């Protein structure tokens, strides 16, 4: 069971930094785990604690805030 577990991680990514980095990772054909879901935000500073909790409430296994 644990082997089959593919963590679902939500990443809030800043438009200017981490989102661009994620984009570049795609362009560079870098491999990274598929369980990640990216939400683009104008700035990582706008991510509210309540939004992070919301993600967990709806089943996220982890949350990354990348700026």
């Amino acid at each position, binding site marked *: 069971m*644990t082997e089959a*577990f593919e*963590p*679902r*991680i939500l*990443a809030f990514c800043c438009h*200017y*930094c*981490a989102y*661009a*980095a*994620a*984009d*570049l*990772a795609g*362009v*560079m054909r*870098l*491999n*990274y*785990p598929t*369980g*990640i879901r990216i939400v683009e935000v104008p700035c*990582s500073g706008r991510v509210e*604690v309540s939004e*992070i*909790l919301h993600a*967990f*409430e709806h*089943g*996220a*296994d*982890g*949350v*990354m*805030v*990348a*700026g």
Partner: protein
Amino acid sequence: MKYAAEWLDKIGLGGERVRMVNLSSAMAVQFAEAVREMTEKIRQLGPNPLRNM
């Protein structure tokens, strides 16, 4: 971020499930690395117990 982690601890989900990373737009390799690290960590922690409730 510390505050979010504190809440997760209080709720009983574990504060380690949330993480902040600082990247610039050119840091694609580091981005992939961070995602990998986080995935590993969460794999160890196991699934969010709320998922199947």
